[in-house]
């Protein structure tokens, strides 16, 4: 059983997945940030691989990516930083990024390396399901990685079922068809999540985009297995002098 499966088996409520950008705020922040997240009670770490043209991210996350790129972050450098991370990080870690840098690194080499160092799954929002099925799924599965698709309020029921079927690990429910970090009308979000819940999907559902505090987290957790926080956390650590303390405070404010 892999780490994501084990996690959802032991905990199916109020799962918190925190997004952070690799190499942000400093090039060597990647591991300290991951360590702090684990210590402060994060259930999953979603590690963003910076890209020059991140279509599905909002300005805060794009800007953190630009900083990381300026810091010298690359996929090769990230794998080097993560080489021994399983000696200290036990919670599931998934990599999130865009197809182009992964293709340049070499898709198979990427999956093989990620799996070898102990990464659990991938989110590549611009990999369409047709190409996933025809070209990439076999490679991803061969290396035992989970692959997580996104669904939005605009995704038809038929398509949600299809993407759920193709996903392993969990399903990423974008809380509104919009960019990360924007304020949401949570009533509408709750209605949408209820709709998803009624579909009785095979995968656990985590809600992303627009989760920023205790209230939005609880609201999202009511109809889903938990949520993903990105923008708010990036903002919190952006100018932090003490990542460990900031992360602890941040997660306390969301969880308690």
């Amino acid at each position, binding site marked *: 059983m892999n780490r994501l499966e084990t996690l959802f088996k032991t905990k199916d409520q109020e799962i918190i997945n925190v997004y952070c950008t690799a190499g942000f705020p400093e090039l060597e922040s990647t591991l300290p940030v991951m360590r702090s997240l684990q210590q402060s009670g994060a259930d999953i770490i979603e590690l963003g691989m910076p890209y020059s043209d991140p279509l599905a991210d909002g300005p805060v996350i794009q800007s953190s990516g630009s900083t990381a790129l300026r810091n010298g972050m690359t996929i090769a450098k990230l794998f080097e930083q993560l080489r021994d991370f399983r000696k200290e990080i036990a919670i599931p870690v998934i990599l999130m990024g865009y197809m182009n840098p992964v293709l340049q690194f070499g898709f198979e080499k990427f999956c093989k390396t990620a799996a070898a160092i102990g990464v659990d799954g991938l989110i590549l929002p611009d990999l369409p399901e047709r190409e996933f099925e025809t070209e990439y799924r076999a490679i991803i599965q061969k290396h035992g990685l989970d692959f997580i698709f996104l669904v939005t309020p605009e995704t038809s029921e038929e398509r949600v079922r299809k993407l759920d079927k193709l996903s392993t690990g969990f399903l990423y429910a*974008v809380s509104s068809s919009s960019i990360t970090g924007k304020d949401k009308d949570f009533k509408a979000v709750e209605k949408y999540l209820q709709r998803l819940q009624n579909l009785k999907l095979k995968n656990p559902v985590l809600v992303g985009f627009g989760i920023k505090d205790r209230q939005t987290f609880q609201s999202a957790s009511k109809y889903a297995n938990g949520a993903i926080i990105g923008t708010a956390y990036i903002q919190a650590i952006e100018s932090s002098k003490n990542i460990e303390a900031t992360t602890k405070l941040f997660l306390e404010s969301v969880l308690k």
Partner: protein
Amino acid sequence: MINSITSFNKGTYKQPNIFGYFGNFGGAYIPEMLHRNVEELATRYIDIMYEEFFQKDYHALLKDYVGRPSPLYFATRLSEKYKTKIYLKREDLNHTGAHKINNAIGQVLLALRLGKKRIIAETGAGQHGVATATVCALKGVECVVYMGVKDIERQAPNVARMKMLGAKVVPATSGSQTLKDATNEAIRDWINNPNDTHYVIGSVVGPHPYPDMVARFQSVISEEMRWQLKEHTGNELPSKIIACVGGGSNAAGAFYHFLDDLSVELIAVEAAGLGVHSGHSAATTQLGKPGILHGSKSLVMQTDDGQIIEPHSISAGLDYPGIGPMHAHLFESGRAKFLSAKDDEALQAAFELTKLEGIIPALESAHALAALKQIHFKPNDITVLCLSGRGDKDLNTYMKVMNVNAE
């Protein structure tokens, strides 16, 4: 069959397969947030475009509003200079000054058929932004144009035109603050407004069906060229067609109806900037590798780590780090020949055409003109060069050259 997508596995030169691939390039590499809009477009564009009423509206506007057909002009003195026969396809005479209006009219009409109330667009030099703002003014539709902060500074007259036409010009402040970032911002706007908005992409780039749809709207250029050539020369087919390529929409339009006539040599001219290997260039077929940019697989200028490189060209319209998937396929298959022209060569060519023919070309088109020096012509060759736009917008750049020469 022109009005349906081929089911051939690899697509043809002209048409992609049902998944949007021209050979190895194309597709729709988009996040789920864009899926419904792009899927709606992919399912419906062909049916709408070839509807009788749509065709009537579209062609009436092209004729009475744009001023089509654009003339095919035999450039006597230019021909004498290169000892061959050169015709200019005068897209520069279109309303708003370039070929961009052909696509803007088509897409805005299509958006209205889809029930959309709001139009967004990206622009680099401002030509596509002006064309889109123009059609939106004509139809009374809300228009928002994304433009890189750096381009807003460089292209002040076009920014003023868009504003006068009633469009909101939004500065793209992310990344390198130029065309590719304006495109990112426009895509984000579309993600945030999934129900009432249509995104008018200005070139043969983006996720399927955009490359095919834009090529079809621009194909009016080569449709006219065929009968105009027949009138002028008695033969529909030229020996060569030359067009500049940034994303590649005027080239796609000029090549389109000749793609399957293999006797016609197709020549695409990219912007080499300060020199192909100077580190300041936009010659994508020479510098790019297969990759994914703005939703399709194509040739892309990028670092070894897969980050997109900011290109350089004196012409803002060619300043793009990719090319459309149709062109990537034409390049890979060898169907089209790709040349490049440097900034100074384009400038020289612009002055040459102005002096010989009394036509001031856009800097983009000047790259196609600059390639004349690199091509071997036979006296009886018939060449059509697509003069994609006029040079009014580039007067500042031209004036700088004149001032330097006067010193």
